[in-house]
């Protein structure tokens, strides 16, 4: 029945609706460049969502854990084989996305008799010098956007726009690690809150933004955060240019995160 072009377009449209529905409960992901690297932050429950891919590449994901694992393994294999056969310098985020994973995700999305990837990812690439970082966001349909300074994953485009606007408004250029941690966590909270509100009042076409005031009161954000992170984990990872050795990725421990985050946040870290 999908041989007819119209039916195929309709099926793809249905699939888009189905996928949008799947991300409503997801936890946003924030990627933000700071003075000596890139910070990735999310709040996760159970399975981690931030991963090391290669010496200067890190992955943040949103969606079904099994699909994220498939994408993660594909990226890992691609990066390591390429790094071994050529050189680690040839393993770039752009090549991994444009010629590697994005076509695979697009194909899965359009093959309507097979399951699509329920996943959105951000691939962060640490540049050799400050200001040369790259952040690539890939949607569930294989479309990708390349940017610098900041990138986010969230349930819908309006929420993502609000989060990016908040990051751009709040972050000095470039922020310190402490500043970046606080700003990223507040941006995550803004996104999570907007997603929940959108879930409660979902009807009609998607607006351009969620109408959330971009400069939301910090105290209100922290109050929402304290409610949201109960029984969850604030997950934070860095691509740290100052780290010795070839691998620049490191997960931030809860203790270190406690020291980096603003004191008025009101969350105890072990």
């Amino acid at each position, binding site marked *: 029945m999908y041989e007819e072009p119209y039916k195929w377009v309709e099926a793809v449209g249905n699939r888009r609706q189905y996928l949008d529905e799947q991300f409503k409960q997801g936890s946003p992901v924030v990627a933000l460049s700071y003075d000596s690297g890139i910070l990735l932050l999310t709040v996760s429950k159970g399975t981690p969502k931030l991963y*090391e891919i290669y010496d200067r590449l890190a992955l943040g994901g949103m969606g079904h854990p099994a699909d994220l694992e498939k994408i993660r*393994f594909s990226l890992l*294999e691609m990066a*390591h084989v390429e*790094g*071994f056969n050529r050189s680690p310098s040839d393993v770039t985020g752009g090549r991994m996305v444009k010629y590697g994973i994005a076509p695979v995700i697009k194909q899965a999305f359009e093959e309507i008799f097979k399951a699509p990837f329920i996943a959105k990812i951000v691939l962060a690439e640490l540049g050799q010098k400050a200001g040369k970082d790259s952040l690539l966001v890939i949607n569930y349909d294989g479309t990708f956007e390349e940017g610098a300074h900041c990138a986010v994953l969230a349930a819908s485009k309006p929420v993502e726009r609000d989060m990016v606007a908040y990051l751009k408004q709040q972050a000095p250029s470039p922020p310190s690690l402490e500043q970046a941690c606080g700003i990223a966590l507040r941006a995550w909270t803004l996104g999570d809150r907007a997603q929940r509100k959108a879930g409660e009042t979902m009807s009609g076409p998607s607006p351009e933004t969620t109408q959330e005031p971009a400069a939301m009161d910090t105290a209100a954000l922290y109050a929402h955060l304290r409610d949201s992170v109960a029984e969850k984990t604030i997950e934070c990872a860095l691509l740290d240019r100052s780290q010795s050795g070839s691998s620049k990725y490191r997960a931030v421990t809860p203790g270190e995160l406690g020291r980096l985050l603003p004191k008025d946040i009101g969350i105890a870290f072990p």
Partner: protein
Amino acid sequence: MGMQGDFYQVLKEQGYQLGASAVAGEGREFMTATTILAFKYRDGVLVAGDRRATAGNMVMYDRTDKVLEIDRHSVMAIAGVPATAYEMVRVLEHSFKYYRRTQLQELSFEGKLRAVSKLLKDNVPAALSGTGAVVPVFAGYDFEQEAAKIYFYDILGAEFEGVEYAVSGSGSPTIRGILHYLNTWGERPLSASTEEEAAIQALRLLTSAAEFDSATGGVNRESNLYPIIKLIAKDGVRVMPDDQLKRLFESKVVRHV
């Protein structure tokens, strides 16, 4: 599901082969023109190597690094055919990283030792043909045992723990005896040495090896050329800087030569 996290297997599935098979040579001598050594000191393990690469009687290069970091907590010192040895190090480096990144945990120290053995075993045809023999010393920090350890291998891949020290290469017979003497009848065992004392011994040992083995490069002060010395402890691998080696050599080694 295959062996998860095995990068070497991934490479082999793509047609990669380490150590091309060749007809075994007859009566060939396995050339390991070099001197590498490792011994335990108070804070961990010291691994050192001379800098000379030779082809027969020809000195090809005098700035070779034969003590190669595989990851933050392990090094492989290489004696034998450099092309094969460097290739093995590249495979190991990618394998350990791939395991850590896919499995979200470090490969165990035993797993690392097995990985070296597997490569040596697969390299046997090239080693026997005389074109690819490698006799490495592997040292690293074992987090399960909370101790830095030393292992040495034969060309077939058998691993042996060097409880106090291990040596390899053409200059090694000279210093093996010295190490035994120092460790048995010295003022105290090598494992009780401070970092500086250990570095002085390593410089003296490599200078002795260079004295009797033409394939081992000694210190060349005119070119500011010193051996490579790396230190492995719980907090990772550290390279001893040349200016420190220069100071120790001039104050504690040169007057005895």
